[in-house]
């Protein structure tokens, strides 16, 4: 039993190392501008955000649609704190160089991005988490839109640059030339690892209890509000970091890019991957990004086969195809790719709770 466990640990560590080495090698071979590298960068960022959303929607059973708002807060916190001093005057040209007159390092800025997003979540959670089900979804969606509008508000322009672009902050390409994928994978890997540790701790079990049956969970002494608030804040913390990484990936940042459509994309990833499966979210995120950025691009291009113009293929058709995929998933694969299992649990039939006290 013990030996088996050690072997599994070694194997999984080896698998993770292989993935990282492979990702690094792909970038070295294909160069940072290739499509596969783009997919890996964005896929990893979306994986983190999808897992953070899964923590809330899949593991705690809180149907929240506020993810884009917290990503936005994280992205702005990161960008505002890292734009080099020399470039501030140019970026904040309408606001006399802005009010923030210092910069911090990249990693601290990522952390601050998460913390600011978590603070927003703590405030928003106070009223919102008293709601249940669809009402919670509507309220969080509303707050996400409010955050977006608020950040573009002219009065706080000196801080956020209003509705103008934020740019020249360190991006993946400028901060980590040649190692963009490895950097993204490492940050995302650490964050997802932390979420996994939380999910498998006693607090994660309490979250799952709330998801399964709120009344029973409360009767077992689990303080509903405290635990929901905790899940909401932690999820937003990682969404904030995810948002900051997305800003790094995009190169420039504008609040208008973080519309509710972004939340739906992530929700789609979570549902396709399986509510309550971290590995499902990760797999679905890479699949989704690969499809939307790469494999299904041809659907948007008008194509001629000889003299024959292929019908339907026109800009926007990709989205139609996506809608069909969603419907198929919802109708026939309601549990998503992984259901509520993890990749490493697939082999054993009774994997759930398999490691007891032995």
């Amino acid at each position, binding site marked *: 039993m013990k030996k088996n466990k050690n072997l599994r640990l070694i194997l999984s560590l080896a698998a993770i190392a292989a993935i990282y080495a492979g990702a690094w090698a792909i970038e070295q071979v294909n160069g940072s501008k290739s499509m596969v590298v783009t997919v890996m960068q964005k896929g990893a960022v979306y994986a983190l955000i999808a897992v953070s959303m899964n923590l809330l929607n899949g593991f705690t059973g809180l149907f929240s649609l506020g993810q884009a708002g917290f990503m936005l807060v994280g992205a702005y916190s990161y960008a505002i704190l890292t734009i080099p001093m020399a470039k501030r005057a140019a970026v904040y040209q309408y606001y006399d160089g802005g009010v923030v007159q210092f910069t911090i390092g990249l990693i601290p800025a990522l952390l601050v991005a998460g913390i600011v997003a978590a603070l927003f979540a703590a405030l928003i959670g106070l009223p919102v988490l008293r709601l249940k089900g669809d009402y919670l979804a509507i309220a969080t969606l509303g707050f996400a839109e409010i955050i977006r509008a608020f950040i573009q508000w002219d009065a706080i322009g000196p801080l956020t640059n209003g509705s103008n672009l934020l740019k020249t902050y360190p991006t993946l390409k400028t901060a980590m030339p040649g190692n963009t994928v490895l950097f993204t994978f490492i940050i995302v890997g650490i964050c997802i690892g932390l979420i996994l540790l939380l999910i498998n701790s*006693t607090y994660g079990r309490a979250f*799952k*209890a709330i998801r399964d*049956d709120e009344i*029973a*969970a*409360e009767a*077992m002494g689990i303080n509903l509000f405290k635990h929901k608030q905790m899940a909401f804040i932690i999820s937003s913390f990682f969404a904030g970091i995810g948002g900051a990484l997305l800003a790094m990936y995009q190169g420039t940042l504008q609040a208008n890019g973080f519309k509710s459509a972004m939340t739906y994309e992530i929700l789609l990833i979570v549902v396709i991957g399986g509510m309550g499966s971290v590995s499902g979210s990760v797999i679905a995120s890479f699949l989704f990004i690969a499809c939307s950025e790469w494999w299904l691009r041809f659907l948007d291009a008008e194509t001629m086969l000889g003299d024959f113009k292929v019908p339907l293929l026109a800009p926007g058709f990709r989205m139609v195809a996506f809608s069909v995929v969603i419907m198929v998933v919802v109708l026939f694969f309601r549990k998503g790719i992984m259901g509520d299992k993890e990749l490493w649990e697939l082999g054993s039939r009774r994997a759930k*709770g398999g490691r*007891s006290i032995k």
Partner: protein
Amino acid sequence: MSEIKTNDTNVLRLTDITMQFGGVVAINNLSLEVNQGEIVALIGPNGAGKTTAFNCITGVYEPTNGAVYFHGKPIAVNHPQGKMKKTYGGINGDKYVSQKPVVYTPDKITYMGIARTFQNIRLFKSQTAFENVLIATHLRCKSNFLTASFRLNMKEERAMRKKAMDLLEIVGLANEANELATSLPYGKQRRLEIARALATDPSLLLLDEPAAGMNPQETDELGEFIVDIKNRFNLTVFMIEHHMNLVMDISDRIYVLDFGKQIAEGTPDEIQKNPVVIAAYLGVDEE
């Protein structure tokens, strides 16, 4: 009667509890006591308000009027307020006006030491039997989410797992520890619910129809089981039950509720002979 008697043997005490939903008075002026080490049954026809009484004790409902004391400490005190002042249909409506209303949420009440099971089984569906019990040990855990995430609480975690496993063994479900809770047969699910309730370290156990859906043999076994865990964990048991054999076998005292009102109280022998109870259950002979 409204003075609080701090009696050491008094585990649970309800005084003048009235629960009114809109115009419906579900419980009307119910007063009862459960003493240390007793098994007390609450019986009555369907819709008599038994489960509502449980919900008032465990904080799911806030009683409209009256007080609940646990080990002499008020855990729910209320009097008709707001709109309820006009529509209040019970009695003693002004008795608790001078007392400050007390409200606790169900999780706080469980923390104080009242654990319950549910009439319609409410296990955590996606979890195994073992995890169901393990979750219930969460409320006593001292680690915060950081120490728990970074596995700095291994000692506590091990203790929690051991306790959960021990409880499963006591209720005879050790072999099913890794089965999904909902895949267990009905009788075992009931036992699992009791194990889960015990994992919260209660001093008072509320059982809501523990024998519902069981055959006579299972019911007999359950009776022995309840007496056994009561002695083993030094518990006091307050239960709702319809199986009269079980009730008469193991209860020390019985309260009978009908249409929200207490119609009788006494030992099993007294209750069996009580004409009011017989009338409530069988209907009045009109000859």
